[in-house]
Structures are given as structure tokens and as C-alpha cells.
């Protein structure tokens, strides 16, 4: 068992006749929070779906926890939270969680404990009896996140989990991600908010299906001579375009 939780090699994905990812390589370390940052449309969600094994890929290899992405044995070891909360609107918070816990094979008191722990972790203890459709957008996305925590997954893939949350809650979720990583869980978290970069152990900057940088934040700042992830991103984009123009001449 190596240090890599996810290994992506020469991944190529085309959607609707357009190449979204073109020969992408990436390694995600175990037990760390890796931030996948980039603007909307840069291929973050497609990459995450490929890691989950739910994306049809043209070519390339994706290995997750030592197995091919999408292998049946990974289904209880990897959890995925989509950008739009995927919960049943006509069930209560608790009914949602109890159902998904059952799908994960948790029974009896184990199921109750898992549901209690997940509800506490996303701070929804007071809302367990409410129907999901009556919750706010931020609360619904936390139910979706709680669902992913149920089976103590080894790898958590979270697509923009902090969108629409107030800053206090965002901070507490990032603290939760850090605590999970300290317990040995691998997290891959996407965001288009660059200031969330400082909460990640490692950053992957994406644009137009390419990886611009894959580094620790301090190293990235030192390399680009900038003071924030946002500026580092701009500097890297400028460098890439300058290089392309230089090549054309």
C-alpha cells in the first residue's frame, strides 16, 4: 500500500464531442486534504466523477485505493458528495440518513450510532425531524455531506461542499475536513473559492482540463512569487498563455 490514494494516468474524457480532460495525470496523497481549485468549467467535476468511476472515459487509467476506479469493492470505501445536494426531499433528515446507512450495510445499533455521529458532525442535530424540502440550501447540502460520512469511508470526494454556507459554518466544515484527514481519511475537495486554499494540505489548480499546479500552498506562493492562491493562479495562467504565444511565434 503506497502513499497514493488516487492515481490518475493519461486520463482523457470527452463529453458531447468536446474534450474535457486531455491526458491528465494526478496523484492524491492518503490522509490529507487535497484542494481541487479552478473556475467553473475547468473539468473539476468530470475529474471527480472519473475517480468515482461513474464517468465514461475515453482512455487512461484511474486507480483508487489500489483498485480500478468504479470497482464494486470500492463502493463502501469511497463516498461522493455531488455539487447539487442529492437527498430525498420528501424524507426527513433522519429518514434520509437511516436509509443510506442501511444501503451501506449498517444494521441495528451500528446504524443508529452512525446516523447520530454524522448528524452531529455537520451540526444538524436540531433538524433531524424536518423534511429535507423545508431546509435551506446550506442545510440540504450538509445533509448530503452527512450521508457521505456514514460508512466511515477511506476516501471522501466532495464537489464544492461549502457553496452557499455562511463563513462560520464554512470554517467549521474545513475544521471537520482537517479532523477527518488527521484520522487518516483522504479528502479531495473542489472549490472555486481560492481563499479556501489555505485550509488544504495540498493544492491542485485546474484550468481548461489541464493541471496548472500541484503543490503545497507555501511552495506554490514561493515559486510564483505571489502572496495568495488567487494571485498564484493568475500568474500561472499568464505564464501558460505567454508560453503558448511564444511557441506560436
Amino acid at each position, binding site marked *: 500500500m503506497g502513499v497514493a490514494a488516487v492515481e490518475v494516468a493519461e486520463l482523457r474524457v470527452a463529453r458531447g464531442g468536446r474534450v474535457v480532460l486531455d491526458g491528465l495525470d494526478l496523484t492524491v496523497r492518503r490522509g490529507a486534504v487535497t484542494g481541487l481549485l479552478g473556475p467553473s468549467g475547468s473539468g473539476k467535476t468530470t475529474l471527480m466523477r472519473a475517480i468515482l468511476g461513474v464517468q*465514461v472515459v475515453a482512455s487512461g487509467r484511474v486507480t483508487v485505493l489500489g483498485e480500478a476506479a468504479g470497482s464494486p469493492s470500492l463502493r463502501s470505501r469511497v463516498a461522493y458528495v455531488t455539487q*447539487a445536494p*442529492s437527498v430525498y426531499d420528501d424524507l426527513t433528515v433522519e*429518514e434520509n440518513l437511516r436509509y443510506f446507512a442501511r444501503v451501506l450495510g449498517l444494521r441495528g445499533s451500528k446504524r443508529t450510532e452512525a446516523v447520530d455521529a454524522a448528524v452531529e458532525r455537520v451540526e444538524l442535530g436540531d433538524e433531524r425531524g424536518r423534511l429535507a424540502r423545508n431546509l435551506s440550501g446550506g442545510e440540504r447540502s450538509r445533509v448530503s455531506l452527512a450521508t457521505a460520512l456514514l460508512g466511515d469511508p477511506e476516501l471522501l470526494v466532495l464537489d464544492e461542499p461549502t457553496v452557499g454556507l455562511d463563513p462560520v459554518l464554512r470554517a467549521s466544515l474545513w475544521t471537520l475536513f482537517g479532523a477527518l484527514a488527521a484520522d487518516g481519511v483522504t479528502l479531495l475537495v473542489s472549490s472555486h473559492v481560492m481563499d479556501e486554499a489555505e485550509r488544504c494540505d495540498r493544492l491542485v489548480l485546474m484550468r481548461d482540463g489541464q493541471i496548472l499546479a500541484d503543490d503545497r500552498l507555501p511552495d506554490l506562493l514561493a515559486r510564483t512569487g505571489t502572496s495568495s492562491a488567487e494571485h498564484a493562479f493568475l500568474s500561472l495562467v499568464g505564464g501558460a498563455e505567454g508560453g503558448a504565444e511564444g511557441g506560436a511565434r
Partner: protein
Amino acid sequence: MIGTAVRVLQQLRHDPRTLAMIMVVPCVLLTLLWWVYEGGAVFQQVGAALLGVFPVVVMFLITSVATLRERSSGTLERLLTMPISKPGIIGGYALAFGFMAVLQAVVAALVVVGPLGLETAAPWGYLVVVAVASALLGMAFGLFVSAFARTEFQAVQFMPAVVLPQFLLCGLLVPRDQMPRVLELVSDVLPLSYAVDAMREVTTDAAPGIGGELLVLAGFVVGLLLLGAATLRRRTD
């Protein structure tokens, strides 16, 4: 599978209006039919057949929209990343809606033979059995076609496209053996024809031999459910 069935029933419990529609609509329609013919000879002829038709329509709509919502809400995609089998998902739906189908058929049959006074040659329990079979048929069709609908608008329109032709050809308007030969052959492969045939036997024959019809209906239900499970894809574009 049981977990999924329980969850679908919980969802219905939070939606009492849909629950009421499942139970009440067929009864109201059959009562209306009785009133139109003032309970006379025509009602005695077609009442049983329509008891086999109405549950198909109601269950078709409810299951197709419910499963389409599962697809469009992203919960189906989430389930498919989790340790649950495709037949487990479809089977869970089939169990839950099958349970509702049985309740609906029993209530509708009781209304028809009770207050509406439909007389059948065979014991009225046979009516219930055939009505349950046709409600299950509607459920299986609904589960199946939801795979081909992208929106709820499309799902609803599958009803006239899939159910109404079967209604026209099922032998209720013109006996099947008096239809043009081509249409008769077509009606031979449509499952609703067998539900109506079975109902006719129950009304006219004291010891109806409806085993063959029920077998055909069961075959369609199982086949449509398997096809429905086959349309689920873990990997999508």
C-alpha cells in the same frame, strides 16, 4: 431491497395527497361509470373490465413520475456509487408500489362488488386477483418507461402513448376476434388484453380458467422490471 421499499413507502407517507389519489381515484371512476349506465346491463358487462384498466393508468403515472424524480434529484446516481445492486433498487420500488397496488385493487374491487352491486359468476376474490395483476402491470410499465423520459412532462406523455393504444385494442370497445386481423394480432401481444380477458371470464364463468392470463401478466411484470433494471447505468457521460 426491503430498505429501499421502506424508504419509498416513507416518502409516500409524507405525501398524503398522492396516497389518497391512489386509493380514491379508481373508486370514483368506477362509481361514475356505474352512474353513467345507472348500474344497468352495460355496467354489468364492462364494470369488471374497467376495474382491470383503471389501476394500470394510476399506477403507471405514479411509478413513472416517482422513479423519474429519483433520477433527476441525483439520488439515483448517489445510490449507484454505493453498495446496492440494480435489481435491488428496482425490486425495492416494485415491492413498495406493488404493496400500494394490492391495497388499491382490494379497495376498488370491494367498492365494485359492494355498493355498486356488480355481479360476477365467479367468487369476487377472483376480481381482486386480476385487479392486483393489472395494477402490478401498470407499476412495471411505469418503472420501465421512466428510463426513457428525461423530464416529468415526457413521463406523463408516455401514458397516452403506452396505455391508451392497449386500451383501444384490449377488446373492451370491439371484441378482439371481431377486429381487423392485424389489430387482433397486435392485441395478442399487448398485456392489457389478457387482463380484460381474465376479467370477462370472472364475470361470466363460475369456475374461470384464468391461469394462462395471469401467467402472461406475471411474465410481462417480471420482464419489464428486469428491463428497467438493465437500463440503470453506473457509468454515464
